[in-house]
């Protein structure tokens, strides 16, 4: 009797362990590789929403309205991602149009968590700016 109970419990434990391993999504260059957009998967087709492209070779770019507005490099360490971007602030705010043609470097830190196969949460910081966002994978 005891052996039967032990066998059933062991099977259940093994099943749970297998399910958690099978469902686990790990942050990696391979996982990030692709185009991501904000807030909803439906926004993949909307150019007014920023699209961020991570490439497995460590380069990345941001774009809106079909125009690339930031480019740079990214490196991942655990659940942290550090990006080094070059862009013109003129792309992002009407009040900053005076920066047209002027490009600067911006280091971006991101903490990434709650990964699913096609989405993840990120908290990003640039200087004293911090934003949380959910990114959704777009079909390539």
């Amino acid at each position, binding site marked *: 009797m005891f052996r039967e109970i032990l066998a059933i419990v062991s099977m259940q434990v093994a099943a749970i362990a297998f399910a958690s391993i099978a469902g686990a999504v790990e942050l990696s260059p391979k996982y990030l590789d692709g185009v991501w957009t904000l807030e909803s998967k439906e926004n993949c087709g909307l150019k007014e929403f920023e699209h961020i492209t991570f490439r497995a070779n460590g380069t990345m770019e941001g774009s809106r309205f079909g125009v690339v507005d930031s480019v740079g490099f990214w490196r991942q360490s655990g659940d942290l991602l550090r990006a080094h971007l070059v862009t013109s602030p003129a792309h992002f705010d009407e009040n*900053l149009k005076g920066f047209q043609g002027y490009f600067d470097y911006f280091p971006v830190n991101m903490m990434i968590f709650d990964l699913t196969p096609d989405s993840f949460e990120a908290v990003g910081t640039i200087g004293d700016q911090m934003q949380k966002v959910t990114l959704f994978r777009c079909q390539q």
Partner: protein
Amino acid sequence: MKSATKFLFALAIVPLSLAGAASTSGTARAGSGGAFIGGMIAGHVVGGFVRRDRARTAAAVNQSYSQPTTVVVQEAAPAPSASKTVEQRLADLDDLAKKGIITKDEYAARRKAILDSI
């Protein structure tokens, strides 16, 4: 990420978010749609302007306080009573009375004051 780590991270986010709220709120939007990286960069640049403007204002205020002001120091008139003897002061008082510059009452009061100072 573990729940405890998330909670601690959230605690850190609140004050930083409040600090950055002056320039951005949530996912920044320029027109319609949204921008994550763009929003932070815009907020960072605009926030930089605000910080520099505040610093300039503070510097201007400090400058106005520390600006050297022209102070005219008038040389104090020598106190005649300090350098003159009682006799000389009484003589001066008599002279003023004779010339009619001071009244009899003033003469009496000043004379009493000179004598009291002995």
